[in-house]
């Protein structure tokens, strides 16, 4: 496997650190006085999402991580695994464990395309699109004409996720949601 020396470090680079695949977030070149140079590097562990900080002597290197972000279509969940299919026409499928999907499960809609991160061809993370449209399956009755601001109530979506919505939302409404914050954005037409 290829490796990268500190002078090749840049944000977005995928490398192996202590046995885990990581993505470089920030790389700071430090060279005080006329001394030896160092790189202070922030990593995101792609398996756990945790941020790690490490210092390297300039010239040291890290092994490259065989990590790929692929667009894949979400097919279904069988209770143990979430199944995704490649969108390149190959119909190739991968199964991601519940732990790998994590909070993304709240926003997965069948036939929707999302990003699956593969490490050595195994899924290690699932990222939903920034915005998804999901149907409300349960909420208190909407207050007619109450389209003004202020006041929210809980609503359960088709995925089982519960979010806060304005009072005028009804069961059967399709809502646009920002998956990065879990916030209601708008009611979609149709």
């Amino acid at each position: 496997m290829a490796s990268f020396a500190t002078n090749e470090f840049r944000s977005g680079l995928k490398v192996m650190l202590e046995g885990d695949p990581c993505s470089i977030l920030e790389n700071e070149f430090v060279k005080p006085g006329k001394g030896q140079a160092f790189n202070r590097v922030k990593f995101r562990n792609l398996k756990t999402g945790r941020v790690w900080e490490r210092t390297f002597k300039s010239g040291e290197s890290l092994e490259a991580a065989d990590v790929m972000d692929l667009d894949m279509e979400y097919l279904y969940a069988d209770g143990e695994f979430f199944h995704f299919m490649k969108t390149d026409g190959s119909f190739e499928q991968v199964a991601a464990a519940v732990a790998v999907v994590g909070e993304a499960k709240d926003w997965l809609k069948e036939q929707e395309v999302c990003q699956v991160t593969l490490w050595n061809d195994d899924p290690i993370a699932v990222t939903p699109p920034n915005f998804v449209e999901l149907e409300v399956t349960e909420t208190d009755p909407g207050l007619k004409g109450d389209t003004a601001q202020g006041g929210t109530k809980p609503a359960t979506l088709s995925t089982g996720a519960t979010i806060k919505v304005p009072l005028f939302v009804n069961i059967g409404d399709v809502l646009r949601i920002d998956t990065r914050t879990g916030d209601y954005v708008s009611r979609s037409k149709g």
Partner: protein
Amino acid sequence: MLRRRAAALSDIRAFFAERNVLEVQTPVLAPATVTDPHVDAIPAGDGFLQTSPEYAMKRLLAAGAPSIYQLGPAFRAGERGRLHNPEFTLLEWYRLGYDDQALMQEVAALVDRLLGSDQYTFNRYDDLLAQSPAPAHEPEELRLAAAIESLSARRVFITHYPAEQAALARLHEQEPGTAARFELVVDGVELANGYHELGDEAQLRARFDQDNEVRRRLGKPERALDEAFLAAMAAGLPDCAGVALGVDRLLLLAFGARELREVLAFD
């Protein structure tokens, strides 16, 4: 940015014109380069792109030039980061009859002109290192970096570098073990590095040989000594102090930028 950069460069030239310091230009591409173990020149043609114009400017001084300055590009292999670029603009100047103290005053005057006036504090290297928040087992370079980042004063001259880090500075006669070398740190950014210059050819040769020894240990290529420079030092360098200042970093501070690339037309 281009206009502000141009205005700052002409401001720097005006500063030296007022003080009768002569602008010079020396080769950017030269057959020899520095032995410094932690500064790597970029090979080009039959020689190297210069990491600073120091040797050539000192040859001019040995040949009888008055106080001189140079504003131009310098190159260092592999140095890339928020505050580093392999090609950068260096302002280097030499003052006949000055020592490190007198030169620090002049550096402060130039910085005041570009960044506005402010207070300067003076910190000895050892005292600064002792204040470092980094754990003692870390390499000295990292402890120094942490100490510099934690400085509360905005403009600090670090003085009395240990003799092992004298580079081309003479040693203090009154304070053994320390060198007449200083650095200026502004808002945590290392801006300038200056010396009361050492002109003793034998001492310089010994330091260069020692550098090559370290290079061997680090597995780096040794550097042939710049004999033209050493011959000029043997002929006699007048008593002088000199300093190199990173112009791109000065502009970064002047414009309130975070990264060097914000003040460069291309990086």
